[in-house]
């Protein structure tokens, strides 16, 4: 795809462009479109990406991730490491220093008490904090002085940068939120809609699920920024309308997540009013394979549980053949265009932990047929479907209702039919599929199908919790109300051991090597998960918006303070 490389080049050009702002608020209004409208600006009450990103215009964490996934200080003076003494040698404490002279938008100083309060706010048992995972394993947060925060972990943390980093874990002002802790969190409408922050903008008006109006923060730490005096963050509609509003009608300067089909991408780009920007992170569309038997004839409570191994998919050759039959580039060209790239890995980025496995990228129908033939799966009754020991190669293939996924289903069904596998398709409403309702038969955790397709990723750049999903004790079943994350019901002692090693290994490179091995065990070696497409972030940007840099590791609005109007 030629235009994709062009896009990457364009993105790079913006990074290099000098930020030549003269004066705060001089460039007037910037209009931003989030087709999934913003519900709240408090990231601790909603982990919806749209809410986190909108909130990031106002609230900031101690450190954020840049476009390459590198941590950079926001409220912190610098990034603590073992080398600079910020992280203790036993990996149990991390000490953050706040920038000096920081003030909230109301003019009061930012202190370590605010940071500590934020931790208390999110870990209160009745608060229902959506980002509780960010503070997992934190034993205490101490404030030796106004500018110093010491986070102590219960166990050594090889990766101590989870708390207070990224758009999902911003710092709240203690004075404002003091009364909103615990069960009162939901009643604090005013606070959640108009939080006092340190970011470049402050909220002037908030219409729930509709539009947020912001203006430049008069107390922002860089007196020349932001260049825009006003931000309108509009919501509602769909991706196509969002893309059109930037690329065709020019009503908006930037539209988030404009995932539309490739033909329309090309047509809109030709209009010349804007460009699509993309960046690849860790979101991977994949087919997950059920290692247990989902046969509806089994009694409820035993269906899709480890009691009954899958009759055909436990055969590694079948899984491999299924993967070989897929042409991932075609999937990208049909469904994603610039918003995707084919991949064979569950952890496709950042580079230090992304496996170089590319052997699946070439479709090999004949090879798949031969593999099945060799494994004893032959078409003994001449109906076009392979069988072995009286078991037919017939699969129920489920996913969510989504035009791209239905196209994928149709294409993959065709390829699998070509290698002698019968496929029945099923599509479930996403709110049910991802709903996690233990009573519903259609959730992805219940997995009452043979294979299922969806996308998953991990927060930030640390893949450890992500790889932990494939541990034996995370298998969902009736005993844990189907809440586990190991939806393949994969269980391998070698994998368990390697994952344990990761938990005690520090050092980016060393951890990256382990993640690569874990990744290969799940994909290349066992094919229990068949990665298809690395889905990037894909948004539309007006040609008159300057300074925008796409970021797939933090919020897309991460550098809104640097935006300006093209002169």
């Amino acid at each position, binding site marked *: 795809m030629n235009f994709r490389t062009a896009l990457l080049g364009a993105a790079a050009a913006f990074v290099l462009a000098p930020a030549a702002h003269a004066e705060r608020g001089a460039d007037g209004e910037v209009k931003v*479109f989030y087709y*999934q*409208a913003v*519900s*709240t600006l*408090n990231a601790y009450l*909603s*982990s*919806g*990406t749209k809410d986190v990103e909108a909130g990031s215009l106002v609230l900031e964490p101690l450190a954020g991730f840049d476009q390459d996934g590198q941590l950079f200080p926001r409220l912190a003076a610098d990034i603590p490491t073992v080398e600079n003494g910020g992280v203790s040698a036993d990996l149990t404490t991390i000490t953050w220093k706040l920038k000096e002279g920081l003030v909230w938008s109301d003019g009061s100083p930012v202190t370590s008490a605010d940071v500590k309060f934020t931790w208390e706010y999110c870990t209160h048992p*009745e*608060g*229902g*904090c*959506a*980002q*509780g*995972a960010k503070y997992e394993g934190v034993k205490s947060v101490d404030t030796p002085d106004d500018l110093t925060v010491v986070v102590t972990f219960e166990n050594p943390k090889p990766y101590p940068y989870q708390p207070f980093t990224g758009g999902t874990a911003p710092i709240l002002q203690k004075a404002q939120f003091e009364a909103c802790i615990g*069960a009162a*969190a*939901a*009643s*604090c*409408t005013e606070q*959640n*809609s108009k939080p006092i922050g340190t970011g470049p903008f402050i909220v002037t008006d908030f*219409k*729930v*699920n*509709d*539009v947020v*109006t912001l203006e430049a923060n008069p107390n922002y730490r860089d007196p020349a920024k932001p260049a825009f005096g006003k931000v*309108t963050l*509009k919501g*509602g*509609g769909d991706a196509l*309308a969002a893309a*059109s*509003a930037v690329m*065709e*009608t020019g*009503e908006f300067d930037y539209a988030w997540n404009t995932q539309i089909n490739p033909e329309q991408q090309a047509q809109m780009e030709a209009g010349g009013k804007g460009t699509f920007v993309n960046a690849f992170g860790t979101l991977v569309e994949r087919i997950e394979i059920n290692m247990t038997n989902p046969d509806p004839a089994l009694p409820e409570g035993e269906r899709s549980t480890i009691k009954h191994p899958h009759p055909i998919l436990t055969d590694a050759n079948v899984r491999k053949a299924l993967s070989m039959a897929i042409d991932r580039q075609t999937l990208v060209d049909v469904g994603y265009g610039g918003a995707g790239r084919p991949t064979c890995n569950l952890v496709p980025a950042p580079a230090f932990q992304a496996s170089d496995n590319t052997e699946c990228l070439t479709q090999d129908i004949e090879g798949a047929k031969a593999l099945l033939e060799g494994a004893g799966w032959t078409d003994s009754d001449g109906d076009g479907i392979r069988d072995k020991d009286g078991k037919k190669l017939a699969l129920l293939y489920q996913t969510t209702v989504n035009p791209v996924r239905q196209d994928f289903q149709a294409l993959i069904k065709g390829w699998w039919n070509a290698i002698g596998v019968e496929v029945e398709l099923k599509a479930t*409403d*996403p*709110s*049910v*599929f*991802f*709903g*996690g*309702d233990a009573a*519903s038969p259609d959730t992805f955790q219940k997995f009452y199908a043979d294979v299922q397709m969806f996308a*998953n*990723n*991990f*927060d930030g750049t640390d893949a450890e*919790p*992500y790889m932990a999903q494939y541990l034996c004790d995370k298998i969902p079943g009736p005993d844990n109300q189907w*809440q586990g*994350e190991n939806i393949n019901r994969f269980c391998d002692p070698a994998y368990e051991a390697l994952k344990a090693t990761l938990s005690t290994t520090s050092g980016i490179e060393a951890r990256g090597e382990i993640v690569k091995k874990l990744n290969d065990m799940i994909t290349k070696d066992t094919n229990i998960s068949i990665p298809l497409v690395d889905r990037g972030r894909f948004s539309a940007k007006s040609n008159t918006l300057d300074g925008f840099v796409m970021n797939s590791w933090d919020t897309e609005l991460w550098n809104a303070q640097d935006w300006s109007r093209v002169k």
Partner: protein
Amino acid sequence: MLSFTIRRLLAAIPTLLLISLVIFLLVDLAPGSPLSDIPLTVPPEVRQKMLAAMGADQPVMVRYFLWLKQFFWIEPLYGIDALLGTDFAQGAQRIISWQSRVPVFQIIGERLPQTLTVVGTAYLIGVLIALPIGIYSAYRQYSWFDQAGTFFAMAGFSVPTFFTGNILILIFAVNLGWFPTIYDTNLTVTDWESLKQMLLQMALPVTVLALFNAAEISRYTRSSVLENLGQDYVRTARAKGMGEGKVVMKHVLRNSLIPVVTVIALGLPTVFGGAIVTEQIFKINGIGAALIGAINVSDLPTVQTVTFIFAVLIVMFNLIADILYGILDPRIRYD
């Protein structure tokens, strides 16, 4: 009449209570979870805590009675407080949206103006178009005007609004660029320029909705007028030598508009429902869009409250239609 009205109002109470229970159970049975749109990166324990904080893990009847209390007691108290500056509510828990943690009535208050502006204007224009067309069509039955009017009406409710709406957007907003594609809810009319902008952004949705409404009402008007034109009293009036204009305007219209008025009253609440589709197509963040959005993320308090308000509207307008009929048609006596 008064006794009838009071009796109907009293009868509406158990009906509404039953409706609220049915809606609550339905919405509760409906597939989906309030946490389905949060990323998979959020672990199960955190999800459990979030559910508990929403109160979503409570048994359904507990939530129902809490909702009843909030809807019929606490929210009115807040309403009184807001009007009179009193403090009867004393900070009692309001109906809070699970998704946004904002009181549902605040959301409704923010959304209603958009819906009323667009739906109200469309309905009004629809009625204004429909009446003359319906009357004249009936008066000149089988004339070319009637044929054209019939075709217009038929086409109006035959062509799905999501089809016409999208085509109109493509032609007039995208290709010609005459109208905006996104409805600006922050726009307030202060001067000629903003008025022009308002009219521009309302043009397409109002056109689509008004045509749809006009189609239906003009059909009713036509058949009602036709029925009356065939009555003896019209023949008598003509025989008396009364002018055609007077016959139609004075006699026929007065009698034939009675059912039309009730149809118009009955139609109003259903228009809110129909507007859901229009709001989706034209990206108007009105009450219908709020409902669809809430359904999509299983935001039960919002779905329950908004649908119940729709139900109240329907019951209310049914009553209004009945009373109107009684007032307008002397033959109808309710006691």
